[in-house]
């Protein structure tokens, strides 16, 4: 599903190149649950941003579902966002002025889903996440864990094939974090959704099927997680 070839990212400052990513090549298949780990400054978030097409690599090739996306125009990229990619952020990034239901509905609006179907899909998702009672609340009326649940619900409602999550539990306490990870695992296993997350936590990484260790912009280790832990 995803193929990275020789991805490089650097910033040139007064002629000195400071590398964020070097020679990153990897293949991620449909249905994998990949955790990107590494110390601060290793390039984890940059790699995720490149995967999410929020940043462009300085060099290298990136194919998403068989399509070269490095040179993709804005319209095509927006199409990918609408149909294939869901984002989950560390700081949740819900829209403060929208209620829970409206936040979840937003991606469907941009996808131009009909009103009746929007209603039913939002209702489904709310039901699945046990948030029907909270649908008319605003984000600041929810706890952090609940906000992140809404964030994931919003990412899921458009039925993406991949979820990109940047430290999804970074702002959460451990019981809530566990709940989110369980959810990710379930989505991955039951619905075959590809998940790529950046995380600091070994515990979280263990939920996945594969771990990429980054150090100074280079993939040091690429290991499969033994299942059934």
């Amino acid at each position: 599903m995803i193929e990275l070839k020789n991805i490089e990212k650097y910033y040139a400052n007064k002629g000195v190149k400071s590398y964020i990513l070097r020679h990153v090549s990897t293949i991620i298949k449909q249905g994998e649950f990949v955790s990107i780990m590494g110390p601060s400054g290793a390039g984890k978030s940059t790699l995720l941003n490149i995967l999410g097409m929020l940043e462009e690599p300085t060099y290298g090739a990136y194919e998403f579902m068989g399509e070269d996306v490095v040179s993709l125009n804005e319209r095509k990229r927006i199409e990918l966002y609408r149909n294939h990619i869901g984002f989950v952020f560390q700081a949740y990034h819900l829209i403060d002025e929208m209620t829970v239901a409206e936040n979840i509905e937003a991606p469907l609006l941009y996808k131009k889903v009909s009103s009746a179907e929007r209603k039913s899909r939002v209702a489904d998702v709310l039901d699945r996440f046990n948030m029907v009672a909270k649908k008319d609340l605003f984000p600041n009326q929810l706890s952090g864990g609940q906000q992140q649940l809404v964030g994931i619900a919003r990412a899921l409602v458009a039925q993406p094939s991949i979820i990109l999550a940047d430290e999804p539990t970074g702002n959460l306490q451990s019981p809530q974090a566990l709940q989110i990870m369980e959810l990710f695992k379930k989505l991955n296993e039951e619905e075959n959704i590809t998940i790529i997350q950046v995380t600091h936590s070994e515990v979280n990484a263990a939920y996945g099927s594969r771990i990429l260790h980054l150090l100074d912009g280079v993939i040091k280790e690429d290991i499969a997680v033994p299942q059934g832990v």
Partner: protein
Amino acid sequence: MFRLNLKIALRNLWKNKGYSTLNIFGLSIGLAGFIMILLFANHERSYDTWNSDAKDIYRISIKWGPGQEEYSSSPAELAPALKEVLPEIVDYGRFYVWDMKQRLVSKDKNENFVDHIMGVDSSWFNLFPYKFIYGDAKTSLLSANQIVLSQKTSELFFGKANPVGQSLLINTKDQYVVSGVYEEPNTPEHMEHDGFVKKSSPGDGWGNGNYYTYLKLKEGTDKEAFVRKLNQTFKKLPIVKEDQGLKEVEMFLTSVPDLYLHASSAQDPTKRGNAKIVTILVLFSSLLLIIACINFTNLSIAQSVKRAKETGVRKVLGAARSNLITYFLTETGIQCVLALLLALTIAEVGMPVLNQLMEVKLSLLSYSNPGQLIIQLSLVMTFVVILAGGYAAFFLSSYEPVKVLKGNFSRGTGSLWMRKTLISVQFIVATVFMVALMIIRQQVTYIKNQDAGFKKDHVLVFKVRKGDNRRNFSQIKERLLKVPGINAVSRVNYYPGVKAMQVIDRDFNGGKVSNLSTITVDFDYFKVMGMPAQRGRVFSDKFATDSNAIVVNESAVKKYGLQKLIGSKWINDRVIIGVVKDHIQKGMETAAEPTAFVVEGRGTNSADHVILKMDGANTQVTLEALKKVWTAVEPFPFQYTWLDQSFAQVYVQYIRLDKLFNIFTYVTLAIAVLGLFALASFSVQERTKEIGVRKVLGAETTDILRLINKSFLVLVVIANLIAIPVAYILSSNWLSGFAYRTSITVWPFVFASIISVLITVLTVSLQTFKTANAKPVDALKYE
């Protein structure tokens, strides 16, 4: 999608109540000012537009020879002669200058003075098709004793009843039969009229331009080409070949809708607007609106940090840039609509003030052409939404989500520069307004204190209605002088402030004396007016020969080289007995014209106004006594004017302009301060951490104030540097339209600069003080 956008936008507005209010309020003030001026400008431009034929109807004006003035009147014989040879002329209509007098109209005991009954051709209503309520336009002016009344005049005498066939007595001797009543049109007109009669003379000969001639041309006739043809054809007329006086005549045409604002001829009885003032007002009110839009943009961008996250999230959820632009424009649109509603309210409430200033009767609710207004307002609102919301929408939608979502987002310097530029533009306009206001005020003061060349206080003017009373005036004068409090009595036709004038051309000693303004007076005129002789003496009834003498003003001496002729015979065999100082006759725009004064006699016009000087003590008692004496002489209602009040009419429009500019300037300053306030507050918020660090490093509150003020003062100084030359060019341009004008000094510029700097320092310091004075630890904890 739209409904959700609307909902979210409203929630956003509600959340930022303070800024939304500032935003909407600032914009609505600008809009209100613009709407009010728009109403006024529409009114000024609506003259004669009721008449759909008006664009094909032209009034002829004439230059009798090269270098002469263009006069709006023409001989009666002209129009028929032209119509015979020019097929483009469909019809013509004329009115007669000597019919334009005030008339005493009576119906039994019901007596009223009616000011404007025009004497016209019976074809008049072909050119000006008023809607007849009673009677028939075609047959209404066939004979000399028919009269057509305006609805208002008709109601004065007959109430709502149909008066056709009833009779009216005019000037106590002539019987007229009412033949029609017409509805006053719903747009103002260049001529005032209360009724029409058939003109009292078929023509006074080619040498007398006593008529105002209107030609109706075939639809779509090209004006320029027709004027050329008109002049060429005229030269070939047999009468022109015979009459030397007509050889050099040049004719001009002014279309009826242009008469009010653009007529250029002298001696015009039409109402005159001032196209320049209309343009100035529209220009400045647009500036006001633009300033308000700029303010709006500034406030929106200043809040953009708060919106940046939202924008980024929307983008990764799949929003295209166009979705976001639509969304932000929706938000701006809502605010603009709210501002418009508020502005309409403000305008409706403020309209009486404008009405009083400009002497019009306009109101939003009872506006005569709502369709036009709605179209104009929709256009303006579209423009406002794009101008006010466009940049913010463009700017906000351009955020790259990755920068925003990482959370360490700070505004790019690009937007700050933009906002600084916008603030500078506001201050440029504000300074220009301030300078303009001060210079207008200076000029108005100058005009008011300008030596008019005569003493205008306690001088009373009223009309002599019977010719006999003019001829036997010396007895009446004796009786008037006996009234205690009256110091001097005389008569005059064109007293200062009257725009009409008799202008004559005479041959003298083989040369030509042309364009000599001639005022007919009676003895003691110069005593009443306090105009002493500069050389020689003025008229006195002690010299029998004075009724055949002439007094000239300094301009006449200069123009015709009369230095050596004082005391000897000049035109019409009149002896120049003295020279008086120039006086202001028509207004401050025109320099004193060469003028001669003659005593009423044979061959002069009639001095048909009594003008008298009171001593100013017990004015009311004197006035009562005068009224008693005069109504014994002429048994009509006593109507009078004070010379100082009627003379003030020549500059009243500039006093109005002064007052309007007052309002403009304060509103502009208020909006600019609003914008500055917002920018300062955001700039302080942005620099909270920097301020904290500086304080820890030992900076005092005053240092911080100085630091923040400095960045704003630079902007204001730059704005002033740009504004000063602009204001100078604008105001010297405006002043050059006056013959009597003040000189531009450095002070308005200095004051305006000082005021703008003071306002800036005050506003910014007020905003900064709290942050600058706070404990640094709070600022540093902030992140």
